[in-house]
């Protein structure tokens, strides 16, 4: 427990690289990620274009950097939305119980009966392909799992003495709920939110790959992979870089998630 686990070190390192890429993109990219240069189409990696150029002659490295910031923004906002919706409803559901709880449970059961990706696909059709559509669709699709996990911990926390004590000293129900029940119910949520971050990065790149995510000229990793598919033989480097970035992000998150779970559940510690 004293020394940081290998999972934590490698995971933080990988996520650190991705965050550094995203931050760099805010200030500087070697070329404009959208600048078309028809004279330099599909140039292999070289000194002037470190990772080569794509079928429009756009610099792959610049697009990759901006793609990192796109992926991270979408992931952060989506997880925030899912946690916001899920935790609020879960808190209400577990604390108020009764009819409200029953209705929320039935609805979340039905939503969980659809595969998450499928629900997100359906919602994307309604929202139309754009960044905020992706955030909304994935946020709604993942909120029922947050609702469930928050509700179940609220159900056990609300029976504890300090909750009763808060009422006895005259705090309102709302105050008791937000100040005392909620903070004691979020530990399991932290682990879920971490893995959810990975699901979102994966789902967002998958949707973009299908052409149903952030629309094409925007440099997302999914868009770059989908554009690389037809040129697999002529320009294989186009398909390598974005995939490595997605995998690196997912691996980092999985390792961090493991490290976190080891901390919270010492029984599974050290592997």
């Amino acid at each position: 427990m004293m020394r940081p686990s290998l999972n934590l070190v490698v995971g933080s390192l990988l996520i650190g690289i991705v965050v550094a890429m995203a931050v760099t993109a805010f200030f500087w990219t070697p070329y404009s990620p959208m600048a078309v240069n028809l004279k330099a189409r599909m140039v292999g990696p070289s000194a002037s274009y470190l990772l080569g150029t794509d079928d429009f002659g756009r610099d792959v490295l610049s697009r990759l950097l901006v793609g990192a910031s796109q992926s991270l923004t979408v992931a952060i906002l989506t997880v925030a939305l899912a946690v916001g919706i899920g935790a609020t409803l879960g808190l209400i559901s577990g604390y108020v119980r009764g009819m409200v709880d029953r209705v929320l449970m039935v609805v979340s059961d039905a939503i969980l009966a659809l595969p998450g990706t499928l629900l997100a696909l359906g919602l994307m059709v309604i929202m139309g392909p754009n960044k905020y559509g992706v955030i909304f669709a994935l946020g709604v699709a993942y909120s029922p799992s947050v609702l469930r996990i928050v509700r179940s911990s609220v159900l056990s926390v609300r029976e504890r003495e300090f909750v009763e004590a808060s009422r006895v000293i005259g705090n309102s129900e709302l105050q008791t709920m937000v100040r005392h029940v909620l903070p004691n119910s979020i530990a399991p949520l932290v682990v879920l939110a971490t893995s959810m971050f990975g699901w979102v990065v994966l789902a967002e790149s998958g949707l973009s790959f299908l052409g149903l995510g952030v629309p094409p000229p925007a440099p997302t990793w999914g868009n770059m992979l989908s554009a690389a598919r037809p040129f697999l033989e002529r320009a294989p480097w186009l398909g390598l870089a974005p995939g490595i970035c997605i995998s690196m992000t997912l691996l980092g998150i999985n390792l961090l998630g493991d490290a976190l779970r080891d901390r919270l559940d010492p029984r599974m510690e050290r592997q």
Partner: protein
Amino acid sequence: MRALAIYIAKRLLWTLPTLLLVGMIVFVMVRLIPGDPVQVALGDQVSAGESEAFRARLGLDQPIPLQFLYWMGRAVQGDLGNSISNGQPVLALMLGRFQVTFLIMVVAVALATCIAVPAGMVAAWKQNGRLDFSFVALSTLLMSVPSFWLGLLMLLVFGVKLGWLPVVGFVPLSENPRAALSYMILPIATLTLIEMGVLTRMVRASAIEVLRLEYIMHARAKGLSERRVLLRHALPNAFGPIWTMIGLILGGLLGGAAVLETVFTLPGLGRLLVDAIFARDYPVVQGCLLFTALVYVVVNLIVDLCYPLFDPRVVAS
């Protein structure tokens, strides 16, 4: 025996409200899509009278709740309407495509399970050893690779560089099994590798929990061989969570089928859905969403119904 019958009956009854709600969600979702389906179907060049007649024929002039009842009523009888783009019945269209998706999914998950169960058991048995470390590292890596990228890499290596397998195209199994197989090997291998990662970790975690229990210590103290302890005593008890996970994985694959089928240009259910979305072919979109949800619910039902086979305790509770 009675307890088992009650368990099965309860589980079956539970699926009905779920299916009804899923139907409602799909129906509402498709109604919320912006744009007028009649205009999409007929184009702009028709008179108001014609489009009204078409609207009435589709029942779109009825109140929404009534439309839902009609739609569900017909859906239960297997009538999901016809495709707007080619006029074919949606159900027939989907069943044809589903064969491809289903075959790949089931073969991949079966292969992944066959590899993951022994690998995970060994890892748990040698917990914290060198072998365990490498198995966990490899599985975590496999888990972190998106299927569509691994698919692209496979195509790049085995299709483009080595030229062993075709890069684009598809032949139905009924036409030429050998050629069909050559198009299916890569998608199956891709899914097998990825699901292997998730499953190995699941088997390992589940087996570690079980190996801690006292009856295992007892079995060892009796002098049973390690092999016997692992296979006859630990595995059956560790298999419950793994079995549930297999159901969830199949469901996840159904949802993610579109991506893999796009990489390998396979005519599966997922690709049908995405093409229908782009073509604004609403009956097909609606049908695919409903059908996929139905398969998902049925798969989980089968998983739950088989559960008592290796864990009779669930029936009692």
